[in-house]
């Protein structure tokens, strides 16, 4: 049986995880600097420092590199018995603050309410590349279990030494070490009192198997949930410092524009701090309204070259591949067997082209930052998935060492892969430098739509060869631009040619929840139905005939059973499926659609997903992630698309860009397969990938129309 427990997967899924340098380089004099002082009473466990190469960051790694093996995490047990666990990972709605606390609680045998997670603070937490790629559960959760287990063993050792007994005879439970024989006990606070102990993680330390978990494996509610329902939690955009000003930056007329002239006379008379530094023009004022008014009072001229528009998008993508000139070596090619020969002898050969549009993340909290200077020491609170990456950007922008910069990441209002960069951090810091006061910059929704980055658009050509008995004999797939995450097929096919073609993107593009796996699964799983149709086979039977992977088979079978696959349907009703394997998780999603023959309206009525990601850490949160993936996925599947023309976004407002709402909500059913024998992996991304093909296949099933472009029905079926 295939269990896919090897975590050293190739890094290709992170192709588009943005690691940009600073967009501005400001001319600042060198100043004296001082080092931040580290705090901490007792460090119980410290891992070896992250690899130097990792620390330097910046450069994009070549595809095929494995993820760093050293995952850093540490925890303190204070003299009061309270546990503080430190990680560079951040909380963006995926609820890892809760799941990581569960991991610590489980192995350390300490109640959840005595654990505090310190996350994404570059001064206090270990280096971390960033919170992306569904890496937290397979790496950080495991690491916290190991760290907590080592901490527990250290405490047991302290108690054993004090009592002069064999550590094996002692029991750790509920924050206390007990000697059952002599009926005596010491709580963690008593054991840590006066200690200054540093313990490295041992090579091997057996962990509690998932089958025996007591805290992990439970549906622990969101820690600090009360702060959120009372409005008390302070997101990055809610941060406020004494004397703080509000900043606003002048945006160019188009992308890639150069400022040729500007008249700031009126703005200067409005009592604001004005900064003009190359292409950067911004103000800081006592209110956001005053800052906005000053920007509006400016008259600026910009120049830029003509730029592509999305009406020519797919033509443009085909013509602008960067193969051969791509110094990062991002081109990707997978060849097995003799594809051409297999196609010529196939009973059926089906060829089709699928496309996906650029879409926006639309995190409900836009980018935000508050920056404060103390001499040449910079502190920034900002919403980002990469606090250490943003620290690097700030150091670069202001020509200061990284240890002069502290970035803190308060739990933020979501990201979905869209907040890897530090635009507002840099803008706020630049304005704060000039104003000599703290400055907050919060992007408007329009700024977020235009000046963030997008999920890549793409073209995917697929050819499948199949024999009359339903065996797929050959598969060829070419992806232009959208990315290579999930590009490989998990179906058993002897002859394959799979190629990713990088393209010079007409828009700034980057990561997005599940990255290109959504596009590649849309193409592959749609094409599976096209092949099944060609040989007149049931789509589920056809998939299972060509699929050996037990875990994937299991989710397809479980979702099919829950869905009632094979049941009869009425006119306008259609059933379809899609599924696959991504970020170490397995998903199968079945959809029911209803098509109104008069209006052409397509309604997704019911969505059933079966998901398996190893041992389940928190069932309710996992269910929440699967449901959320399907709801968010509705947008990209049905109607989301960025419209752009000559360097401008045309639909960059929420009134012009449709996102899924209550009225779009299908009936959601989620089947979770708990594999306690398999290490836990992430769940924030994989569940999204089955939905779009399931809907496309269901629409075909309903009305016999094959839609091959995402979004499928931005204007209903008739007008597509």
């Amino acid at each position: 049986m295939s269990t896919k427990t090897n975590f050293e997967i190739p890094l290709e899924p992170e192709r588009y995880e943005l690691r940009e340098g600073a967009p501005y380089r400001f001319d600042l004099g060198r100043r004296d600097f001082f080092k931040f002082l580290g705090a901490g009473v007792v460090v119980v466990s410290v891992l070896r420092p992250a690899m130097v190469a990792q620390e330097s960051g910046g450069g994009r790694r070549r595809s095929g590199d494995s993820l760093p093996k050293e995952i850093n995490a540490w925890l303190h047990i204070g003299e009061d018995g309270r546990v503080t666990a430190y990680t560079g990972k951040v909380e963006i709605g995926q609820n890892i603050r809760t799941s990581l606390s569960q991991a610590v609680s489980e192995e350390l045998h300490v109640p959840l309410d005595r654990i505090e997670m310190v996350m994404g603070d570059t001064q206090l937490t270990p280096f971390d590349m960033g919170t992306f790629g569904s890496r937290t559960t397979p790496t950080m959760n495991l690491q916290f279990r190991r760290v907590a287990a080592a901490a527990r063993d250290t405490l047991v050792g302290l108690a054993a030494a004090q009592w002069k007994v064999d550590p094996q005879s002692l029991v750790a439970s509920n924050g206390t070490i007990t000697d059952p024989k002599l009926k005596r006990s010491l709580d963690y606070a008593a054991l840590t009192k006066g200690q200054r102990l540093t313990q490295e993680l041992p090579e091997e330390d057996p962990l509690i198997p998932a089958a025996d978990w007591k805290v992990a494996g439970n549906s622990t509610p969101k820690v600090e949930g009360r702060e959120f329902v009372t409005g008390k939690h302070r997101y990055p955009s809610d941060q406020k410092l004494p004397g703080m000003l509000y900043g606003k930056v002048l945006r160019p007329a188009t992308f890639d524009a150069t400022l040729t002239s500007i008249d700031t006379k009126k703005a200067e008379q409005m009592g604001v701090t004005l900064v003009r530094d190359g292409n950067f023009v911004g103000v800081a004022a006592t209110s956001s309204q005053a800052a906005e008014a000053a920007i509006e009072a400016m008259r600026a001229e910009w120049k830029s070259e003509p730029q592509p528009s999305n009406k020519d998008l797919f033509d443009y993508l085909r013509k602008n591949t960067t193969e051969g000139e791509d110094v990062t070596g991002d081109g990707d090619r997978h060849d097995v067997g003799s594809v051409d020969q297999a196609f010529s002898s196939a009973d059926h050969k089906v060829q089709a082209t699928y496309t996906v549009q650029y879409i926006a993340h639309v995190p409900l909290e836009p980018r935000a930052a508050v920056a404060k200077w103390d001499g040449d020491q910079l502190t920034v609170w900002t919403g980002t998935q990469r606090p250490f990456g943003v620290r690097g950007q700030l150091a670069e922008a202001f020509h200061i060492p990284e240890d002069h910069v502290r970035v803190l990441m308060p739990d933020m209002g979501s990201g979905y892969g869209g907040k890897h960069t530090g635009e507002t951090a840099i803008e706020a810091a630049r304005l704060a430098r000039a104003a000599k006061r703290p400055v907050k910059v919060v992007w408007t929704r329009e700024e977020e739509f235009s000046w963030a980055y997008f999920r890549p658009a793409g073209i995917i050509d697929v050819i499948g060869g199949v024999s009359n008995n339903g065996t797929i004999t050959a598969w060829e797939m070419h992806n232009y631009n959208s990315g290579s995450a999930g590009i490989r097929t998990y179906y058993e096919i002897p002859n394959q040619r799979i190629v990713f073609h990088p393209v010079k993107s007409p828009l700034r593009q980057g990561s997005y929840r599940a990255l290109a796996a959504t596009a590649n699964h849309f193409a592959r799983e749609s094409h599976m139905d096209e092949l099944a149709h060609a040989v007149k086979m049931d789509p589920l039977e056809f998939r299972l005939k060509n699929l050996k992977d037990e875990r994937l088979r299991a989710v397809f079978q479980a979702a099919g059973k829950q869905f009632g696959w094979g049941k009869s349907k009425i006119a306008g009703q259609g059933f379809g499926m899609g599924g696959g394997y991504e970020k170490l998780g397995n998903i199968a999603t079945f959809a029911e659609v209803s098509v109104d023959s008069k209006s052409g309206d397509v309604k997704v009525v019911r969505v059933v997903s079966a998901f398996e990601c190893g041992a389940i850490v928190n069932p309710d949160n996992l269910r929440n992630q699967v449901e959320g993936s399907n709801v968010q996925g509705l947008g990209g599947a049905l109607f989301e698309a960025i419209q752009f023309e000559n360097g401008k976004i045309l639909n960059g407002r929420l009134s012009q860009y449709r996102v899924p709402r209550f009225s779009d909500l299908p009936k959601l059913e989620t089947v979770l397969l708990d594999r306690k024998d398999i290490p836990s992996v992430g769940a924030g991304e994989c569940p999204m990938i089955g939905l779009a093909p399931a809907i496309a296949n269901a629409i075909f099933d309903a009305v016999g129309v094959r839609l091959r472009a995402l979004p499928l029905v931005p204007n209903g079926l008739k007008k597509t």
Partner: protein
Amino acid sequence: MAAIRLAINGKNYSVDADPQTSLLSVLREDLDLTGSKYGCGEGMCGACTVLIEGKAQRSCITRVGSVSGKQVTTIEGLASGDELHPVQQAFLDAGAMQCGYCTSGMIMSAVALLKKNPAPSERDISDFMDGNVCRCGTYSRIVSAIQKASTTPVAAAAKGGTR
């Protein structure tokens, strides 16, 4: 600029502001009531929802000058001391959030809905709440939470809205 008298969460304030300023920016910047969120600035996402005289309104498109003398309730004013409003409690119990950024606005809209319709159907909830966006996609949990709160007798009574 003018002194504008505001009644928020049962407390009186006087703020020096242009009457044309949005209520949301006054709440957040002048009064440091940051529970109401900015999401779109055009009344399309509901993250800034507050109750004005018990009715759900988008504070980002509400001029502060227009609410002078009216009773405004924000998320900060919903709980009674340590006791959560039943809708807040229902959101917690249903795990009806991921990042939680939409939660304030969702709860305020839900309170207004239950005040108007103490026992809403799923369809009623969907219709009333359609202007509130949750990008994390927790809608089905929010529907459950509202239904759960609707069976809590006190939610249907006078607790919603101004106190």
